[in-house]
């Protein structure tokens, strides 16, 4: 079946892309299947696990549940864009130091949610962090260590 394609212009991790995609392509499909950025994962496709979280113009979004075309003309940051010039982002370092991940499948999504949250307000209480991270499911860690990792970074900002 022929499906109409649309032109999409988007900036991902500082790189400018112009490509032709099916209108139904999700942002997650764009990242994983078209751009080869497989850091964002998919665990539910029901907008309920947060494993696909990326940052779109400063806001954490679930890439499985928005269309790639909604990112037209905008800037996307994925987990691959966190480390700069060979240095890990403070959140990435803190996640390693605190043992804040186990299987790691949900980790990219958590990092992006945490980054968006701290970028907006670095002075969060632990309770606020726990509320803000409600959208990111984790089955391995029991959440404690990664909340501690985020608080650690927040306190240093």
């Amino acid at each position: 079946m022929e499906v109409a394609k649309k032109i999409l212009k988007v900036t991902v991790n500082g790189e400018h892309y112009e490509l032709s995609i099916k209108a139904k392509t999700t942002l997650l499909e764009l990242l994983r299947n078209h751009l080869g950025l497989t850091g964002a994962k998919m665990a539910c496709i029901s907008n309920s696990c947060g494993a696909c979280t990326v940052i779109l113009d400063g806001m954490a979004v679930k890439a499985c549940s928005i269309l790639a075309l909604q990112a037209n003309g905008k800037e996307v940051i994925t987990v691959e864009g966190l480390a700069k010039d060979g240095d890990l982002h403070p959140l990435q370092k803190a996640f390693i130091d605190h043992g804040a991940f186990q299987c790691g499948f949900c980790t990219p999504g958590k990092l992006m949610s945490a980054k968006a949250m701290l970028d907006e307000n670095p002075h969060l209480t632990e309770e606020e962090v726990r509320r803000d991270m409600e959208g990111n499911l984790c089955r391995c860690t029991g959440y404690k260590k990664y909340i501690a990792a985020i608080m650690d970074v927040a306190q240093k900002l």
Partner: protein
Amino acid sequence: MKGVKVAEYYGFKAEEYSVIGKGLPRRDGPAKVTGQAVYTFDVTLPGMLHGKILRSPYPHARIVSIDTSDAEKLPGVKAVITGKDTWGIRFGFVDTPRYPADQSVLAEEKVRYVGESVAAVAAIDEDTADEALDLIAVEYDPLSAVFDPEEAMKEGAPEVHGEQIPAAGRTCAWEDWGVARKARSYKPVNNIGATVMISYGDIEKGFAESDYTREDRFVIPSTSHAAMEPHCAVASYDPFTGHLDFWCSRMDMEQKRYWLSKTLGMPISKIRIHKSYVGGAFGGKAAPFDFEILAAFLSRKTGRPTKIVLARDEVFTSSNNSVRFDVTVRKGVKKDGTIMAQHVKLISDMGAYRGSAPVALYLAHSMRDAIYDIPNLLHEGVGVYTNKSITQSKRGHGSPQLSFALEMQMDWIAKDLGIDPVELRLKNLRKKGEVLPNGDRLDSYGLPDCIKKAAESAGWRKKKGKSRPDRGIGIAVGGMFNGSGYWPFTGSAIVKMNHDGTVTLYNGQIEFGQGVDTSMCQVVAEELGLQAEDVNLVSADTELCPTDFTNWLSAGTFVSTKACLRAARDVKEQLLKIAAEIMEANVEDLEAENRRVYIKTDPEKSVAYDEILRYNIQKHGGDPIMGKGFAKPVPEVEFYPSLSKGTGRWTDAYSFTAVVAEVEVDRETGRVRVLKLTIADDCGFEINPLICQGQLEGQGVMGMGDALFEEIIFEEGRQLNPTFVDYDLPRAFDVPEMVTIDASDYEPKGPFGAKEIGECARGAVIAAIVNAVNDAVGGKIGSLPLHPEKIFKALREKETA
């Protein structure tokens, strides 16, 4: 830090360890925090096709016809297969002389549960594959179905399976693995597909000698493992060489390879299972799955790599959930609380195929048998076929279910007799050094310490019976084995000396979050006087690693890491011997540290590992120094234990956990908030305390989900909540304060004294939370999970009473 007690006891100091006993950062960290870690979910191969599976909408129906012609004509569709292509092939988690494997790859004459695989397609992309599924026309003739195990056992109930007759010449897995008994056919009577009866002592006498007896019934539903990475597989069959390359989100590589070989009829050596990171397992990725075999079938048929990723609802309906138990416990005790007799009756609603239920019926008993001294015991279980989805091992495998029942009943007995629950437990414990009825010996037994430390840390004495009316406190304990001789397989390892004096470890364990990559390398580094980063790791690949069948049964540390330690020790012995030759010294006068071998009394004299290596290659025929190690639980016993009778040695060591839970109950809504979990664990020795804490905290929250939220809800065999929207999982805001305590008892057979830590706590957490809730509401809620309405009802009943 943990090692201290052990160290004092054994006359060495924990600080003498330089690599183990330290919470070193995990070696999978950089890959996982940068998104570079490759999971099977991320694997893409050139020319790869996408496979999808058509599933049964009926719980029980005869397949009249399947028409695939329209699907085959759809452009982009490369293969469509049905039961005709896989007819007669059987596989299953259990495939023994007594219980032949009962699962087909695609449904043959009939479907037995909603979600069963009926046909599979491979197409150039996912959309085309989905469209092709819509074009397959299946005509069903619905049959009467049965969903309740007690109904299923009645005369005249719908028959889920006829006689299971192994195909002519088909050997069962146990025969293939060297057990000299032939597969027989199995005829389920009243849908009973498995039985267990274990007894010791004299149960009637035990009850006769009891001052007090009570009987209670408990119901435990299925829950989802809910590993974040959905089940998925990539198969790549090379038609020119006949080799199959395979990636899947999995646990044990040998089991996966064995079943691919058996179902595809391919030599096992032509199948390679590759390493990929695994996004969580929790026991739910151990069994062989139809979709894995289908990916390989489709790849072989098309000659192209084929990937199948299950959607989350398929993970729920078609890749097995935890084992459902209905438990009746009758217990007899003396006035002083001494347990005299225990009679457990288990009914397991297995679902449409056996899954792991026959094993779980046994394990439920065996893992708890190391906890309490019960002189007279009868443990009876039946596994019953119903038209529901299949059930499977989940973190603790049967033990959490029975722990919930037994530990709750212990509290009710304590209340009835006016004995403190902590004291009642301490009174009935086994003793260190004791030999269990099946012959297993408790060389390490940290459980008394676990209980005392958890109770003390949580302030049990101050709080029990004295807290606010909306608050409650509860305690529970759990036990877990450390691998089993049940599987006649080995954990093994190779350590290779590198040119610069570092080493490379080759071992088959897969990293699914438990931290094994890191802890194995710490052990090897410690033994060889290296830093953890001096150990390179090649793991989880059947072609690159030596045989390893221990990526389950909580055997990773106790068995496979012991193999790594022995391989390192082999290298060390070689290094010392060659260094002795170089320095003209005696081996016993030498010590290995910091990549050098020293003379103990004269440390100025030393030789570096890389020099030793070069010397050995030159002087000893090119020998580049490699060590090998292997390990097996209960090596002195050749034969497997009887699951159905509970006789025979099972494991070399048990781990233990005690948990104290504190909760707050909203008396208006019945909603529970867990305030604090205090988890004290005996894992022998914490090789990496940070990873150990993570395992306990993970089980704390997973157990809280089991206790309060999680349940797969069925209606007429159909799952009503197969999504993360409708299936309630613990989230960040639900997390209580968690205190983890190391109460380990050095295990002489473990590597550096270590035992498992990944499974033991979950059951104790569940029971402790439920005990705490019942403490708060003064109720006796005996079914999981504790939804607010159950608690609300209990509160109202109490008020009206």
